[in-house]
């Protein structure tokens, strides 16, 4: 609990917000061109005071919490062609520092919702409307698939073959036999061939590998990867 090195003024409202947005950014392959950010609770009440707004913008641009460009992230967003739209809403019975991030570019539209837990720790609990469980402390794999027997086992198998160690695994489905989302935290990044292989597994519609965001090392562009399927 000493660290991260960050740009102020608030670890939960600035560093945590930046990390949530950074994770959201990496659920897209290409940079977003539009973002709708819905702030909840304390995030909504003190967004500007704590720099939550600029920190979210910074994360969406791929900046880490210690990036000196955070205070001027709105200008950077404008220069990068990222349109931002902030709103407030009650997101229900969630942590007081929560935000729903809806992103869009020419290829994709998706939603990521999460909370900043304090001290820069975060938790993403929804992606594309599915319940997930990501802390950003590990590399994480998101897999959207049909709820069919054996899919989870096949994914686990590929991770094991690539010598990845699963730290946490969460799976949630909308209804029996319908679509389901797996969120898996792995202690290292899966190799590209493993991801390519998973792309071709039947019943898998979409997958993304998100970088670890807690160490303070900025993830490079190449660390976002995945595939867009039929879903």
């Amino acid at each position, binding site marked *: *609990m000493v660290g991260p090195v960050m740009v*102020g003024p*608030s670890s939960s409202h600035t560093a945590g917000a930046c990390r949530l947005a950074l994770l959201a950014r990496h659920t897209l392959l290409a940079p977003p061109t539009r973002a709708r950010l819905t702030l909840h609770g304390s995030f909504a009440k003190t967004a500007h*005071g704590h720099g939550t707004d600029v920190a979210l913008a910074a994360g969406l641009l791929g900046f880490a919490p210690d990036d000196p460009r955070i205070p001027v992230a709105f200008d950077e967003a404008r220069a990068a062609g990222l349109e931002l739209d902030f709103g407030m809403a009650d997101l229900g019975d969630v942590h007081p520092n929560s935000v729903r991030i809806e992103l869009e570019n020419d290829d994709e539209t998706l939603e990521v919702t999460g909370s900043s837990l304090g001290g820069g720790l975060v938790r993403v609990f929804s992606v594309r409307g599915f319940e997930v469980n990501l802390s950003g402390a590990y590399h994480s794999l998101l897999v959207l698939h049909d709820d069919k027997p054996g899919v989870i086992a096949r994914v686990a198998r590929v991770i094991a073959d690539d010598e990845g160690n699963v730290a946490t695994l969460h799976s949630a489905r909308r209804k029996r036999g319908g679509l389901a989302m797996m969120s898996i935290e792995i202690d290292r990044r899966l190799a590209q061939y493993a991801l390519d292989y998973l792309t071709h597994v039947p019943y898998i519609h979409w997958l993304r590998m998100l970088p670890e965001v807690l160490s303070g090392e900025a993830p490079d562009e190449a660390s976002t990867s995945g595939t867009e399927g039929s879903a």
Partner: protein
Amino acid sequence: MTLAELAAAPGRASELALADEVGDDRSARERLLRTMRERLREMRASIERGLATDAPSRTGMVGWNAKRLWKADDVLGAALLRRVQAYAMAVNEENARMGRIVAAPTAGSAGTLPGALLGVADHLGLDDDALVMPLVLAAAVGDAIQAKMFIAGSTGGCQAEIGASAAMAAAAVTELLGGSAHACVHAATMALMNTIGLVCDPVGGYVEVPCVSRNAFYSVHAVSSAQLALAGLESVIPPDEVVQAMASVGRLLPPELRETGEGGIAATETGRRIALKMAR
């Protein structure tokens, strides 16, 4: 690792904390120590920047306090006190200017630990190398508290943020001055026990008032906790029970007193007026 486990360390508390983090993996040990040295450098850099400037924060409420105190006469014959307070505020004023700081455990409470630890070290003329292991211990104390409660003003009130930072700082200073593992943990515990109930009430939602001065006060609080523990005083209530007590007080706090900027100092007439002005 709980506070009780840390207190029972056979040798230095920081050695146990380090072993708990990295086991006997030598390269992991080196990496962690390197990170801590890097954190110390960042802390020192933020203190130096903060003491040298009187540039206002974005709201204009703070920005010059550290420098003004640093330049003021030591009328009390309490140079340590002035140094610790000035260092703590220097970091938090940097934070308020959106400068680079080290969260410890949070950004709002980032001044307390460097204020106390570097303040005491500089007062005694100690080298920064002596601060690395105390910093490892501070991190472990923060983790032990974090395991029982969310460390954020918005969930636990300021007691969670500043309380945790003061506890971390108290343990670190105690270790720096040669205190036993037991003394380090009891310094942390006394610091926590005497912060319970502190609400989070930043004016306008900005981490400036009361936050900047609060860091000055609680870095001194940490130093006095270390002083008591080094003299052999201890907390009657066991450390982990005190953390538990703080967590339950946090749950009892109404939302107005948890970083919404709607209670306490933030809700005063002047606090509200400033908030309104800033919103425009």
